[in-house]
Structure formats: structure tokens, C-alpha cells
């Protein structure tokens, strides 16, 4: 589903990604973790072309994202993305947030989009809030709406960029629960997160990054059992024993 091949990226002189390679097959859940500044958020933004890469190749569902001729809007319309700061559209009601992409990008009718939106809102447990505005919801609720918005486009895979790191601790679980459910339904997911509990529960693989490189790319059991690199061991001991 997603192939990342030898990707390198620079911001000016500064190299943020160095020869990153990994791939995610259909139905797989891959957690990307690593210390801050390791390039994991940058890498996930390259997958749907929000960030350009200078070297290497990324292919999503057979389409080369890194090819200048690629119709990126079309590709992105079926790659769902969830952001750290939710990024709902503040001037639209929740219903409108859920409908706008379906109507303007997929060409669905307002009624159809509305119905689909309400179904998804129900699924994330927020149908009572359909007519509210994003500013009237808590962070956890906003992030669940953001997941529903991504799902409204019927994505073939989902990208999560630190979906819980801007949330109050007591709201993290309501978002993770939705994500676990998605994973269990077989959604292909690439998740940048520090939530190791989530990784243990549903990840198939864990990719560990440090200083712009993929240091470790292992199955969940391998990663948590005996990480090969010292850097991953250090990271794990810090994050699990805090």
C-alpha cells in the first residue's frame, strides 16, 4: 500500500531525512516513534506529498507521490490524515466539517454527505454535537471529529501525525479507542505516536527513527522484546519507565 524508498529531505542545508526506507502493506498498522526532532512527522507528511522530498521515491497504492506529474489532490482525497492539532475548520459546524470534502472533492450531494457524516459522527460517539462548532468541543472531541472527517472520504489508508500529543491526559484514551477500533477493522494505518500502549495493542510493526534515519524497523514483539539498537533501547527504557 505504501512504499518509502531511500527518501532523503533537506530544509536548506539541514538534512531532516536520510535514506529512509520502509513499506506498509494493506491492513497493516505501523507505529512510527522516536525522540522529537527525529523526522517522524516530516516523514509522514511526505507520504501524501504535503512535504516534498529531494531524493528517493514514495509510492501510495501504485501512485508515485514523488513524481511531479502526479495529481496530488486526487491521491490525497483517498489518503486520510489526522493532525496533532486537529485542524478542524473553525468557521464550519461539525456537520459542515464532515461534509465539505465529500461535496467539493468527491462530488457527493449535500444530503448524501450529511448522512454519511452523521453516521461517522455516531461512530465516534459525538452525534449530539452535530450542530456545534469546533471551538465548542474539547480537544478529544475535536480529534474524534477529525478522524471522522478523514473517514468521510472513504480512505484506503490513514496517516496519524501525533494524534494525541496535544491532548489532556484524560482525553487521550477516547481518541485511542477510536483508533484501536479502526485498526481492528483492518484499516491500513501509519501512526506517529509516543503511545506505546497503543503500539503494543494493535501495531504490526514499529519503526524507530533517530536523527532523520530509520534506526529500527521490526515487528512489534521484536521491538518491545529485544530492540537491536542501543538508541531504541534507551528510548524505550525512558518512555516506558517514566
Amino acid at each position, binding site marked *: 500500500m505504501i512504499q518509502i524508498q531511500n527518501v532523503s529531505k533537506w530544509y536548506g542545508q539541514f538534512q531532516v531525512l536520510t535514506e529512509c526506507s520502509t513499506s506498509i502493506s494493506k491492513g497493516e498498522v505501523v507505529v512510527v516513534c522516536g525522540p522529537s526532532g527525529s523526522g517522524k512527522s516530516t516523514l509522514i*507528511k511526505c507520504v*501524501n506529498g*504535503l512535504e516534498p522530498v529531494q531524493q528517493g521515491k514514495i509510492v501510495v497504492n501504485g501512485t508515485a507521490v514523488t513524481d511531479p506529474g502526479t495529481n*496530488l*489532490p*486526487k491521491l*490525497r*482525497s*483517498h*489518503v*486520510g*490524515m489526522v*493532525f*496533532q*492539532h486537529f*485542524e*478542524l*475548520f*473553525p*468557521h464550519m459546524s461539525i456537520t459542515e466539517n464532515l461534509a*465539505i*470534502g465529500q461535496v*467539493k*472533492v*468527491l462530488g457527493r450531494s449535500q444530503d448524501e454527505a450529511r448522512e454519511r457524516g452523521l453516521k461517522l459522527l455516531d461512530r465516534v460517539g459525538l452525534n449530539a454535537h452535530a450542530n*456545534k*462548532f*469546533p*471551538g*465548542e*468541543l474539547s480537544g478529544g472531541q475535536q480529534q474524534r471529529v477529525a478522524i471522522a*472527517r*478523514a473517514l468521510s*472520504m472513504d480512505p484506503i489508508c490513514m496517516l496519524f501525525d501525533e494524534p494525541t500529543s496535544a491532548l489532556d491526559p484524560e482525553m487521550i484514551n477516547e481518541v485511542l479507542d477510536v483508533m484501536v477500533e479502526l485498526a481492528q477493522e483492518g484499516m491500513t494505518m501509519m501512526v506517529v505516536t509516543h503511545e506505546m500502549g497503543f503500539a503494543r495493542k494493535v501495531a504490526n510493526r514499529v519503526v524507530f527513527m533517530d536523527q532523520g534515519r530509520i534506526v529500527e524497523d521490526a515487528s512489534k514483539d521484536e521491538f518491545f522484546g529485544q530492540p537491536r539498537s542501543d538508541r531504541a533501547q534507551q528510548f524505550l527504557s525512558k518512555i516506558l519507565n517514566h
Partner: protein
Amino acid sequence: MNYHWNWDIFFQTIPSGDETYLMWVIHGLGWTVAISLAAWVIALVLGSLAGILRTVPNRRIAMIGDVWVEFFRNVPLLMQLFLWFFVVPELLPRDLSLWVKQDMPAKEFITAVLALGLFTSARVAEQVRAGIQALPRGQRNAGLALGFTQAQTYRYVLLPMAFRIIIPPLTSEFMNAFKNSGVAYAVGVWELVFVSRQMVEETGGQVIESLLVPTVLYIVCAYAANRIMAVVERRSHVPGFIVAK
């Protein structure tokens, strides 16, 4: 103060006809409003466009917006008015140039609207740019990630919020359009400044009355612009969106 007040001058007829000076003032007000509103439409449309251009990812396209703003912002308004009035007609092809200089109807008015509109557009452009750049970076990404094109992202995601944010400075700019329209007297439009100067000369020194009434009318116009924008601000309020009071 040894000043001889005479408010009756407004009801005196002008030396060369049967209109009263009051009628002059009313005409002047009409031209002031006409110039200001027409210029504001130009400023809003072209200013928004230039402001948006300055924020697009493509640097070459953004440069067009940069040049636009720098030119219209860095030359004094009065000078721009003279450039449009005296210089630009000379630069046109010969036939067009002749037509503009001799036959163009309402030449003074159109020139004033153009000069004020373009001058104001540079200021509007900067506000629009500031509004767009004040939005979280993730908003653009969220729009693009949904599958919107850049244009759709501006239309549905960035501009609706950017314009809401900049209503206060846009209000000042709308009011400025009324106040700055006074320069049109320099090319001979019979707006409020022109009328008051004319009255000062013709009424034998009734300086205060001649200047006070137009002044009050400017205040009324600018305040009306302010109230209109206040309504716009109220109507476009987003529930739950925190605005510092």
C-alpha cells in the same frame, strides 16, 4: 475670538447661478461617497488578490503580489493621483491618449477612483496577507490533505477565517477610503474638500462654517463605514472561536 458667525451662507445662492451653497455641499457629499465606495470595491477586490498572491507557495507568483504592494504603498497618494491624471494618459497609444485627454467622460472622477482604489488595495493586500499568515500552518495542510486544490484550500479553509480575523484593520481601511477621498479635489472633483475651499473663497471669509460642515460630514461618513463593518463583524462571528476583547 472676534469672529462673525454667519450660518446663513449655506442658504445663499452662489454668485453664478441659482443653487444654494447647501446644494453644493450635498453634491460634494455625493461625490465623496461615490469616490470612496467605488475605490473601496477596487481596493477590496485587487487588494485581496494581491494579498493572496503574496502567500502562495510558488515564489514567482508571490513576487507579483510583492511588487504590487511595494509600488502602491511606497508612492504618496497625491503623487499617485497626479501620475494617473497627467502621466498615464501620455503613455497610452496615440488615439486612446487623445480620447482620454479630450473626450473621456468623468475623467476626474474615474482617475480619483482608480488612484484611491489602487493605493488602498496595497494596504488591504497587507492585511489579507497578515490574516492568512496568522492562521495555524496546519489549516492549509488539513485542506490539502482532504484533497482540496490550492485554490479550494484558499476558498473554503483559509480565506473565510483570514477575513474574519482582519475585520478590525479592514474597518479602519474602509474609513480611510472616505477620508483619503479628499485628495480628489486636486484634480478638480467637486467633492467635500473642493466645495469647502470654494466656499471659503467665495463667502468672504466664513472659514469656520465652510470647513466645519464638511468636517462633520466626513465624521458621519467614516462612522457609518465603521457601523457597517460592525454589523459584518457580528454576522460573521464564529461560535466558540475565542477573540480577545
